[in-house]
């Protein structure tokens, strides 16, 4: 990985401990999977370059000014029988100089800042993949309108292709933050019955295949702290395979209808039939769209679309690994697993129902 800052770090460490610590933090970026200091996309690299420019200017100013201050403390400490110091009231030349030099430094920071603003804040010109990002209390919905995919909490994208995000919220303010890939942008509620439509853009082109974490960065209620997300970057072939799988039963493809061939296979499978029944009778359907149920095509339910939840790596907005044990516990006691979550069971589920649902949900990859 990136070894450069470590080498530089040694040399600086001797001069000031604080500075050394900053570099140490940068050098150890490998140990921080959610770091902003190890950019893995075009846009985060632009931001990182700008940050490093201002950072090094700040280091220079820090060393000079704190140095002058500490030197003065030591040099001008009172000694016994000091005469009264010279009563200077100011020095116009000096004051002009120390106003002008910071002004020049600020200009040197301002120029790359404005350039980077215009490079980063406009919508993507020609994105290869468009994704609608919708914040909910407390999960992320991702819709791929052109590819016909609706999923939650795990944004799957191809590598080395420009991804254009259009983002809004279904309830309160949230902020989409993927530190290594896309930086951060707030999302605002949008209601179709009014004219107000603040859709925020963001774009990025991921360097390489990988699994990146992120999370909501705007206070959005009780579970703001665990409103996580993952961005999974795949190569083109894997991405196409993922899209093909996700399209089955997607609300964006024939309103959630599955092809007859798939349907007949599921009808013959007891896990699928029993599970679908339990999904209805257990009340899951009142909040969740699910392939093979009457509300497979619903887009405005409160909970995440569960059609391919078996294929996701985590549940509860990147809170728990998607294992049978965790899924079962989630169905048994969602409030114990995530206090304040909007997931309320209409009635407690029996252990049989939980087992059925776990098998059923995990079968839907």
């Amino acid at each position, binding site marked *: 990985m990136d070894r450069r800052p470590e080498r530089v770090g040694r040399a600086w460490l001797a001069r000031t401990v604080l500075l050394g610590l900053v570099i140490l933090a940068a050098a150890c970026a490998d140990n921080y999977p959610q770091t*902003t200091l190890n950019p893995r996309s075009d846009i985060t690299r632009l931001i990182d370059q700008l940050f490093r420019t201002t950072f090094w200017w700040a280091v220079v100013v820090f060393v000079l000014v704190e140095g002058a*201050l500490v030197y*003065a403390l030591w040099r001008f400490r*009172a000694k016994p029988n000091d005469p009264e110091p010279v009563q*200077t009231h100011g020095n116009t030349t000096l004051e002009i100089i120390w106003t002008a030099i910071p002004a020049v430094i600020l200009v040197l920071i301002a120029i790359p800042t404005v350039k980077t603003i215009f490079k980063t804040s406009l919508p993507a010109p020609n994105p290869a993949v468009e994704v609608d990002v919708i914040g909910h209390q407390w999960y992320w919905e991702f819709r791929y309108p052109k590819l016909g995919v609706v999923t939650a909490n795990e944004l799957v994208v191809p590598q080395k292709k420009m991804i254009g995000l259009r983002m809004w919220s279904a309830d309160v303010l949230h902020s989409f933050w993927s530190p290594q890939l896309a930086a951060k942008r707030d999302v605002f509620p949008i209601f179709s019955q009014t004219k107000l439509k603040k859709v925020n853009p963001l774009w990025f082109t991921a360097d390489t295949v990988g699994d990146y974490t992120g999370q909501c960065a*705007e206070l959005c209620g009780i579970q703001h702290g665990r409103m996580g997300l993952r961005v999974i970057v795949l190569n083109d072939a894997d991405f196409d395979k993922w899209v093909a799988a996700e399209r089955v039963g997607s609300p964006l493809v024939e309103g959630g209808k599955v092809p007859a061939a798939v349907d007949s296979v599921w009808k013959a499978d007891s896990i699928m039939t029993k599970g679908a029944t339990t999904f209805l009778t257990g009340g899951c359907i009142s909040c969740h769209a699910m392939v093979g149920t009457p509300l497979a095509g619903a887009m405005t339910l409160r909970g995440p679309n569960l059609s391919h939840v078996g294929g996701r790596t985590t549940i509860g907005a990147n809170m728990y690994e998607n294992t049978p044990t965790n899924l079962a516990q989630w169905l048994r006691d969602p409030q114990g697993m995530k206090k304040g979550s909007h997931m309320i069971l209409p009635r407690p589920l029996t252990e049989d129902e939980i087992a059925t649902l776990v098998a059923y949900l995990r079968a839907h990859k």
Partner: protein
Amino acid sequence: MATSVLEHRAPAIHHAHPKTGIWSWITTVDHKRIGILYGATAFLFFLLGGIEALIMRLQLMGPNGKLVDPDTFNALFTMHGTTMIFLGVMPLSAMFFNYFIPLQIGARDVAFPRLNAFSYWVFLLGGLFINASFLVGAPPNGGWFGYANLTSSRVIAATAAAPAPGMNIDFWVIGLQILGIASIAAALNFFVTIVNLRAPGMKMLRMPMFVWMSFVVQVLLLLAFPVITVALVFLMMDRNFGTSFFMPDGGGDPIMWQHLFWIFGHPEVYILILPAFGITSEILPVFSRKPLFGYTAMVFSGIFIGFVGFGVWSHHMFATGMGPFADTFFSMATMVIALPTGVKIFNWIGTIWGGSLRFTTAMMMALAMVALFIIGGLSGVMHSAPPADLQQTDTYFIVAHFHYVLFGGSIFGLTAGAYYWWPKMFGRLLDEGMGKAHFWLMFVGMNMTFFPMHFLGLNGMPRRVYTYPPGLGFEFWNKFETIGAFILAFSFLIFLVNIIKTWFGPANAPADPWHGATLEWSIPSPPQEFNFPKLPMVGSSVPQWDARRAAGGHLPEPALVSGADIPMPNPSYWPLVSAIGVFLVLGSLLFIRVNPVHWWQFTLFGVAVLFFGVFRWAFEPPH
């Protein structure tokens, strides 16, 4: 020419009123006693806010913390921020405004002594009101910035655990309204005091720097608080009367709240820091035995900071997607503020340069304030660049930044002021040994707590999260910070012990223990009720140094005088009655949803109390 209003009043009979006892404090209109009331109250709230911070640090000490539940954590950071800003730093500054503006400008009291008492009582009741929310189990939990529509919405913000919205945010909205009335009344009072009551010869450009910075703060308060008042009224209407100022489903816009909040909120930052700048500018010359370097530049840079401070509010909103032109404007305006701030820092260094530095606790605190504020200023420049801010905003990097500015800046500055002015206020010198222990532990604890937050923020830890999962690399520094926070808390325990020990110690402070430069050192410690037996004549910005020099370096201890012929305002309890009226009127709004039919009867009762209080106040003889 500035002369005292009090001086022109016809001498009246000096009523015999109690000088001690609880009643004398309840009815006091003496700016010095009100200052002490502000200070004592604010310090207790400050300790409360500190305890809230310690609970948060314990929760975040390790991953998946389980000490408090998520909703409690949201309440803790909301109340920590609200308390420290509105009930801690602002009233601690108000303590110094109260006590030292009249003394430093050579006045016998503030312009409106009873209004001053009214401000204090309203502040006290507002602070108690917000904190009463803990007692009914509904503490505010929407952040000190209270972003709509999380705070305005009545349905979607409800949680499964609490489907109906509680009174949490109502406590916050109404409490801030009450505190706003106290702030505006006090600001008017100090503004008029500084403009009208300066001693003969004290031109504006001879005022002590603390008075100058306080003056700028009063202007900021007068211009900024009306904005938050309006925003809070809108929010209250959204919550209670079905309006849609910030509700998108009714055509409102939640971003409007952010603009209104930060048009108040950014000047508020300067309201918090400029008093500390002023205190530092008082202390450094005294303990360097040199006048302030570049006095005029210091005055105008302070004014410039206050002025431009109204044009940078949207740098809190770079992540909202305002577009490249707005981003550029607010970014450049923000960077410009670095210039006058830099001027101040260079002038402080210029002040100590070539001096003869005495390292008293006050001096060390003031120097640390300069050193730490530089760090906060530099990280501020880093996120004045909007693209960089897209990574940094709402992360611990910002938490680090503003704690360097507000703890390193404001709190160190105010603590410096406490050590510096304690002998003047109480006639007793705080123990310097304990003071230095306090300083070093506070300095180390502060840096241990807040410096690693830079690393955590840049490495991906967002703010306002009740916990974090293991594996993100956040464990080490969080534990380190928690240790630092307890060292910091311990340093204030030493301060508390120092205060108690000094309280019971001998009255050992002379009138001018530090060889100060300004008028408050020319009168006994503590000053008599009327401050100055005879109003001083001022010929420069360092009148006490002039007097000392004229006396050949040694000034005699000022004598206590009877002052029976000096007319001073009578004590009065009508300010308290009026404050209770304000409290009842606004407090009644809490019950709009609880009792939609009868709540207004409560309001009417409050209006009656307020009217009665103000009426009796208006027709009370002044002397």
